[in-house]
C-alpha cells in the first residue's frame, strides 16, 4: 500500500469486478474452484472468467461438458464434500436443465440430512434481455429460484456489489444463486480493492426522496435511478431501493420507505405476474406500512410473452426509462 498508484485506480467493469472477486477468493482459499461450459481456455461466454485458467490451471478452472444437469450435479457434490465451487451457466435460461440438482438437491440436502452437510455452492447466471439473443437466451427467471426455501438469490446492479456479493456468496455455507444482467457486464464503476463482502439480504437505498418509493432489481435499479434524476427535475423525489437480494428480502428497508412516502412502485424485468413485484406489494399490504399508503401500488414488469428477437419488440416488452417516468408521475400526481 505505498504510493498513489496503489491507492487510486480507474473504474472496473462489472465483468472485471466479478473476475477480481473470483481471483481474490481463489487466491485466499484453495477450496474455491470454478466450473462451467467454456469458462477455461475460452474465458467464458461473456469473458467473465477471462485468463483465470492461465493463472490457476485446469485443476481449478474446470471446463464441463455441455450438460447443465451434469455440471451442476458435480458442483453440488463437490460442495458437499468440501470444495467451494462457483458454477457458471452460459445463460440463466439453461437453469431449466439443472432444476433437479438446484431445487431438489442443493436447496434441500442440509434440511433433509439434519444439518449434517451443507452445500456451499455458488451458481452464476448471465440473465436478462436486450442482447438480441431471443426467447431462449433472454429471460429473467430469478423469481423461479427465489421461490425455493434453501436457496439465496441475489441480483447485483453495480460492479461494487457484483464483487462484494460474489465474495459473500463464496463464504456462505448454503447455495447462493447470482443473477448477472448481461447488459451490465460492460458498465463501469468504482470497486474497492481487496477482499470485502456485501451482505446478502440487505437492500441499498440508492437515492433519497419523499414522493414515492421505487423498489427495483438488477438493471431496473439503474434505469429507475436515471428516471429518478429526471423526476427530481420535475419536482418528484423518489426513494430508489436497489433490492440486491430477493431471497432473503430486506423487508425493513422497503417498509420504512413506504411508511415515509405512502406510494410504492416496483420495477423488475421478470414477467410481471407472480413476480418479485407481487411479493413486495403483498409484503407491504400485509404490514403496518399499509396504513401509510396513499395510492394503489404500481408494478412495472416484463410483458406476458416470450422475449421477442426483433430489437424494437424486445425493448417494448420490458420496462424502459420513459415507462418508469410516466408511471411515477401518474402515481404521484394522483392519476391512479
Amino acid at each position: 500500500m505505498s504510493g498513489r498508484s496503489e491507492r487510486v485506480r480507474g473504474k472496473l467493469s462489472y465483468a472485471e469486478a466479478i473476475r477480481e472477486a473470483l481471483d481474490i477468493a481463489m487466491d485466499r482459499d484453495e477450496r474455491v474452484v470454478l466450473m462451467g461450459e467454456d469458462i477455461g481456455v475460452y474465458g467464458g461466454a461473456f469473458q467473465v472468467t477471462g485468463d483465470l485458467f492461465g493463472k490457476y490451471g485446469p485443476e481449478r478452472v474446470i471446463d464441463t461438458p455441455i450438460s447443465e444437469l451434469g455440471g451442476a450435479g458435480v458442483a453440488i457434490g463437490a460442495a458437499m464434500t468440501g470444495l467451494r465451487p462457483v458454477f457458471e451457466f452460459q445463460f440463466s435460461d439453461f437453469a431449466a436443465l439443472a432444476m433437479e440438482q438446484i431445487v431438489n438437491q442443493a436447496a434441500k440436502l442440509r434440511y433433509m440430512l439434519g444439518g449434517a452437510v451443507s452445500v456451499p455452492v455458488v451458481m452464476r447466471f448471465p440473465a436478462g434481455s436486450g442482447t438480441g439473443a431471443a426467447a431462449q437466451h433472454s429471460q429473467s427467471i430469478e423469481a423461479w429460484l427465489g421461490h425455493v426455501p434453501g436457496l439465496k438469490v441475489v441480483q447485483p446492479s453495480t460492479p461494487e456489489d457484483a464483487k462484494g456479493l460474489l465474495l459473500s456468496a463464496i463464504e456462505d455455507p448454503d447455495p447462493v444463486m447470482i443473477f448477472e444482467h448481461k447488459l451490465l457486464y460492460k458498465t463501469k464503476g468504482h470497486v474497492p480493492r481487496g477482499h470485502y463482502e456485501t451482505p446478502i439480504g440487505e437492500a441499498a437505498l440508492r437515492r433519497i426522496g419523499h414522493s414515492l418509493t421505487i423498489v427495483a432489481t438488477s438493471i431496473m435499479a439503474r434505469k429507475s435511478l436515471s428516471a429518478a434524476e429526471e423526476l427530481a427535475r420535475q419536482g418528484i423525489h423518489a426513494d430508489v431501493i436497489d433490492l440486491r437480494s430477493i431471497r432473503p428480502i430486506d423487508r425493513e428497508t422497503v417498509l420504512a420507505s413506504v411508511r415515509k412516502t405512502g406510494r410504492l412502485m416496483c420495477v423488475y424485468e421478470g414477467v410481471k405476474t407472480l413476480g418479485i413485484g407481487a411479493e413486495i406489494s403483498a409484503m407491504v399490504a400485509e404490514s403496518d406500512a399499509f396504513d401509510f399508503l396513499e395510492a394503489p401500488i404500481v408494478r412495472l414488469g416484463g410483458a406476458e410473452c416470450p422475449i421477442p428477437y426483433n430489437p424494437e419488440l424486445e425493448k417494448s416488452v420490458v420496462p424502459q426509462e420513459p415507462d418508469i417516468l410516466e408511471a411515477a408521475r401518474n402515481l404521484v400526481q394522483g392519476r391512479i
Partner: protein
Amino acid sequence: MPVEVIMPKVDMDMASGKILAWHVSAGDEVSKGDPLFDIETDKAAMEVESPGDGILRFPVDEGAVVQIGRPVGWIYADGEVASDPPGGIPSSKDEFRQSVPGEATADGSRNNISSGPDNISGKFRASPLARSLARADGFEIATIVGTGPRGRIEAKDVRNYQARRESEADTSDALAVSESASGTGTPIILLHGFASDAKSWTRLESNLGQRPLVRMELPGHGRSQILKAVGFPDLAATVRQTFDGLNLDKAHLIGHSLGGALLLDLANARPDLVASLTLIAPAGLGPEINGELLAGILRATRSESLGPWLKKLVADESLVTESYVQAAMRDRMEQSTRAAQEAMADALFPDGVQAFDLRAALARVEVPTRILWGKQDRMIQWNHALRAPGRVAIHLLDGIGHMPQIEAPEEVARIIEANL
C-alpha cells in the same frame, strides 16, 4: 372501456350535486362538448358537457344526489357491448355502487385499476393513510370529501378537514396567525402579498430587532383556510376580524402589496389601535398591475414554469435560486390552493386591473404612514406612491423590484425601525 361521466366539482366547497335534468336519454348518441345534463349545487345550477363521443348508457335518475367525482353515467364507443353498467347501477336512493377492484391479470393487460364505478353501498374510496388518520382522530371517514382520483379521500383531505374543524371551533373565518416567541414593546403585525405567505418576512424579521411579531396569512395562503368570499371587502372584513381577535391595545402594521392594501383598510377602520403603518409596494393606489405576471404565477404547476415569473418579482434575478423556486412551488402544489388563489385573483384583479381603490382611505389615515417602493418593481409601478397625500413619507429604493423585504431587508428594516 366506456368513458365515465362524473359529477364535476364546480365550486370550492361542493361535496355533491343534484342531477336536475338530462339533455339526452340513455341510448342517445352524444359528441364531446354536447350539453349532457344540468346540475344544481348549494350555490348554482350549471350545464355539464359530454366528456367524449359515443352512446350514453346507464344515466342516474334525474333528482339523484351524487358525490363529486362519482359517476353519473357512461359513454360507450359505437359498437362497444354494454350488457351491464361497469359495476352495478346507481339508483337515486343509493349513490354508492358495487366495487370492481383492479385485477392483476395474467393476460398481458396493464395493471389498470378499474375505472368503473366503485364502492359497495356505504363504503368510500379512501387511502389507507387517510383511513388511519381519521381513525386516530376518531371521526367518520364518510364525513370527508375526497379530492383524489375517482373521489378518493387522501391524507390531505383528512388534514384539511381537521384544520377546518379546528379553525371553525376557534373563530369562524379568522386567518392563520403565528407569533414570534419573544420580544417587548408594541407588536408588529405583518401581512404578506398575494400568492405569498408569512415565510416571505423571514429575511426582514431577522433585521427587525426585539419586537413581538404577529404574522397573518391571507385565506388560501400559507396555513390559512380557503374562504368562499374573496372580494376585497370580504378579505378586509376577515383581516379586521382576525385583528380584533388578537385584542391588542396598539400595533404597528407592515403590509406588502395586497397585504399593504388590506392593512391600509384596517388602519382606516381601527385608527385608535394603530401606532404606525408601513406599506411596501402596496396595491390599491391605482388600477394598473401586471396581469400577465400574476397569471403566469397562478398558472404554473411546476418549478420550471414558475421560476421565470418569480424572477420578474425582483430586480436582481440571481436572488431567485432554483431551491427558492422549488420551495415556492411546493407551497403551490395543492390544486385546491391554486384554485383558491385563482378565484381570489379573479375577484381582486379582474382582467389584470386592481378592482379596489384605497386612495380615499389613505387620505383619511392619520397615523404615521410611510410607503416603500422598489423603482424596478415590475408588478405595480412605483409611481403609484406619488398619489399619496403629503404627510405620507415615501422611500423609493433603487435597484429593487416588487419584494424590497426580500431584496433589501437591512435597508427596509432600518427605515421601519427609525420610525417605530
